[in-house]
């Protein structure tokens, strides 16, 4: 009976050690996996911010006012900085969440930049058409008006010239 008990105790201890070992190993693997995932997510967030900024540049090139978008990108960059800090300190879950938040903010900016670019292009086209119409109509009207004024002025000038009486100066030599 005693021999059985000793064997049982030994086996139980062995099993406990094995389970603990597997548990520690799994924990380590999981931690590394979570850490890698957070690192990947931080990289994705960084790329997302870069792409969003490129979208902002395109919208700005189309003539849009992008100051609102840059404020939101600032926020995305700040959250990414928090994620990097948390990752550096070993808080991988916080780092992961912050990186996801940052990437979402950047994605929102990217989408809004596309919309802003479209509306800016439409606005710019409208302004261009109006300016062109103003120019096409205004220049001939102005030129014709100026010609009429010139024609009137010339007549006035000639008449005035003809009305002048020639005078002979007293000291003129014959």
């Amino acid at each position, binding site marked *: 009976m005693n021999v059985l008990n000793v064997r049982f105790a030994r086996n139980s201890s062995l099993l406990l050690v094995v389970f603990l070992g597997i548990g520690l190993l799994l924990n380590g693997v999981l931690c590394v996996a979570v850490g890698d995932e957070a690192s990947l997510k931080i990289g994705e967030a960084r790329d997302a911010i870069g792409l969003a*900024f490129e979208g902002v540049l395109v919208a700005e090139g189309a003539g849009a006012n992008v*100051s609102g978008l*840059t404020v939101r990108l600032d926020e995305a960059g700040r959250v990414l900085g928090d994620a990097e800090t948390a990752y550096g*300190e070993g808080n991988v879950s916080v780092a992961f969440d912050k990186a996801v938040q940052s990437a979402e903010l950047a994605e929102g900016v990217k989408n809004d930049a596309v919309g802003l670019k479209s509306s800016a292009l439409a606005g710019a086209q409208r302004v261009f058409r109006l300016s062109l119409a103003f120019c096409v109509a205004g220049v001939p009207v102005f030129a014709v008006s100026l010609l009429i004024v010139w024609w009137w002025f010339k007549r006035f000038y000639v008449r005035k010239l003809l009305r002048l009486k020639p005078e002979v100066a007293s000291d003129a030599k014959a």
Partner: protein
Amino acid sequence: MLRLEDWKIIFAAVGLIGVLVLASPVLSLVVRLPGGERFSELYMLGPGRMAEDYPFNVQAGRDYLVYLGVVNHLGGAEYYSVVVKLRNASEPLPNGTSVTPSPLLVLYRYSVFLVEGQSWEGALSFGFDGVVFGENVSLVGKVLVNDAAVPVDKVAAWDSVNSGYYYQLVVELWLYNATERSFGYHNRFVSRWLNMTGSL
């Protein structure tokens, strides 16, 4: 009295100016005039947001504050990275001639987005931890930047000329290149010398 020929020239000049004025809205959309000089500003201010009272004599266990600023005069929206580093007197500074940054560890990084003419100012709080003094050397174990602890293990030798253990806080400006999709050193940096005086 002006001659008719002179009046003709005046009318022609008025006509030309008038046509240019009327066409200016369209011309402004088509012709792009060159802008002024394009550059970025990077500056560091003391804790009162003035160029004074900068931290100099520092010790472990205390927090110090400076403000960093960036102004964009590059003509469009820009994505900056403001990079904070710490060096000792023997480590290299950024090289302005070859436009290369200092090869030191990055302690902290700010992401800054600015449109043309816009400025940014951010607080940089820093402190030191694990400071040890040996024979003519001091060692800083960790730098705390904006509440984030970064291990550095940086050694500074005793400077007999200036009587102190000198470290230098270096702040570099980097700029995002949308074509290459990466940051490049923008050839701007500011720095402050810090004299490590106590380990607490």
